[in-house]
């Protein structure tokens, strides 16, 4: 479904991504793990065409992602994103339901199965989507600052799934949330994935979250892909030293 071929990206003079090659099959989910500055968020932006690629190419379902309007519009029909910080990913001056249905406005021909009956009514669609992510209908008319962090992230997720995309990129979706809310959001994402038959690219610094969410794991460090494996092989002896270090640290938390 998604092929990333030797991507290189440089900001100013420092390389952010160096020769990254990855691929993802339909229905599978890929976890990308790395510390801040490892280039993992940049990768997400490149897949969505939010930044230009210096070298290499990204092909999604046969379409090359590049800075041409129609190619981007086609790709974004099937690839959506949930950002890390819901406070900044929702327009503060817009009632949240309007943010949620924005993708549906722009792709009038797209009819997700779960919105079939209400496709011509924006408010009802927003209501259905709110339902889907476990938000009460009373919150539809609220503005972002009137919602809690977890609620905002649910709104962002509702927007992400509104087109029933084939691939949803989650860029650290829980790291700005409180501990007791993280589990809720992870459960929701897992449930939606099954429900809507989506693939995820799940970006995180938390190995446990990636393990919980994904079939495959890629380890990024300083813009280089160090390790890539199926989730079952996480504890295998042949893992890269850096991966082992991360695993060791995560296991130390188990008391």
């Amino acid at each position, binding site marked *: 479904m998604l092929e990333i071929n030797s991507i290189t990206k440089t900001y100013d003079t420092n390389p952010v991504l160096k020769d990254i090659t990855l691929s993802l099959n339909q229905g599978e989910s890929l976890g990308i793990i790395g510390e801040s500055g490892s280039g993992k968020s940049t990768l997400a*932006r490149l897949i*969505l065409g*939010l930044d230009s690629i210096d070298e290499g190419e990204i092909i999604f379902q046969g379409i090359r992602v590049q800075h041409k309007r129609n190619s981007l*519009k086609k790709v*974004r*029909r099937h*690839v*959506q*994103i949930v*950002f*890390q*910080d819901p406070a*900044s*990913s*929702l*327009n*503060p*001056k*817009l009632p949240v339901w309007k*943010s949620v249905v*924005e*993708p549906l*406005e*722009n*792709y009038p021909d797209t009819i997700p199965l779960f919105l079939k009956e209400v496709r011509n009514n924006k408010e009802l669609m927003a209501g259905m989507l709110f339902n889907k992510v476990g938000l009460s209908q009373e919150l539809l008319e609220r503005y972002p600052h009137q919602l809690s962090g977890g609620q905002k992230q649910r709104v*962002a997720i509702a*927007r992400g799934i509104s087109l029933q995309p084939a691939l949803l990129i989650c860029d650290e979706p829980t790291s700005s949330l409180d501990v007791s809310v993280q589990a809720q959001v992870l459960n929701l994402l897992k449930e939606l994935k099954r429900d809507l038959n989506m693939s995820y690219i799940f970006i995180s610094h938390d190995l446990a979250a990636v393990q919980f969410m994904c079939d495959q794991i890629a380890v990024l460090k300083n813009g280089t892909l160090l390790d890539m494996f199926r989730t079952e092989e996480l504890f295998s002896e042949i893992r890269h030293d850096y991966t082992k270090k991360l695993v060791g640290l995560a296991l130390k938390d188990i008391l």
Partner: protein
Amino acid sequence: MKINVQMPKAIKLGIKIKNENHMIICGLSFLTVIIFITLLGPFIVPNDPLSANMSERLASPSVTYPLGTDHMGRCIFSRLVIGAQATLGITGLVVASVVMIGIPIGLVTGYIGGRIDSVIMRLVDGLLALPEFILAITIAGFLGPSLINLMISIVFVKWIGYTRVVRGIVILERNKDYVSAAKVSGSSNWKIIRRHLLPQIISPVLVLAALDIGKVILIISSLSYLGLGAQPPAPEWGAMLNDGRPYFQTVPELMIYPGLAIFFVVLSFNLIGEGLRDKLDVKRH
């Protein structure tokens, strides 16, 4: 000696809201009265503001002349009231044109960025070095003093400020996730500008405009005072001050009334502007 900070937001607002609202209400009520008088001007003035009557020059306040007469025996009160039309009208026009020019340019250059942006901004940086007051003097100097020339020169310089503010906000906002999210949602650039960016600039521009109205009034009256704006016998406040200058040791009222008029009009706009700024939490630019 300690400055206290880090108040939880709710508390901070609680204290502030009162203060801002007072300022806005105060400014608005001044302004309403002034606009009311201005609009009704022609019907309520007791005398023709232009008709001179040398036998009644420098008269004290009386029933006929509520604030007395000037050095040419003209009714000061009537001149003040009619003068408001000129001042407020021109200022309104100037600020409206400036906003209409400044906003679109700022939005587009800020959002698109790249070469167009840098060319325009370099030019703008250059123009910014021309103080509007001095530019206005120059234009007045070359083209002859008149209110129209005055307006042109103020517009010529003032739009830059708006472009810069709008562009600054757009650049700040366009890199935020919600704009990225709108792009990913498939929204066109036009839609992003209209729906996501335009609402962000409304409050700052509103504040800027309110404060600028005051500044423009001051510029106009200063230039008229220098004799480079409104020309006699037009009843403009700055010009009235200029007229009264030679007499003000003996009849200070000639200077006090027009000065107070300018002061209160500008003050009411400043009150509104400052109040709005605090209320809408707009940063200074």
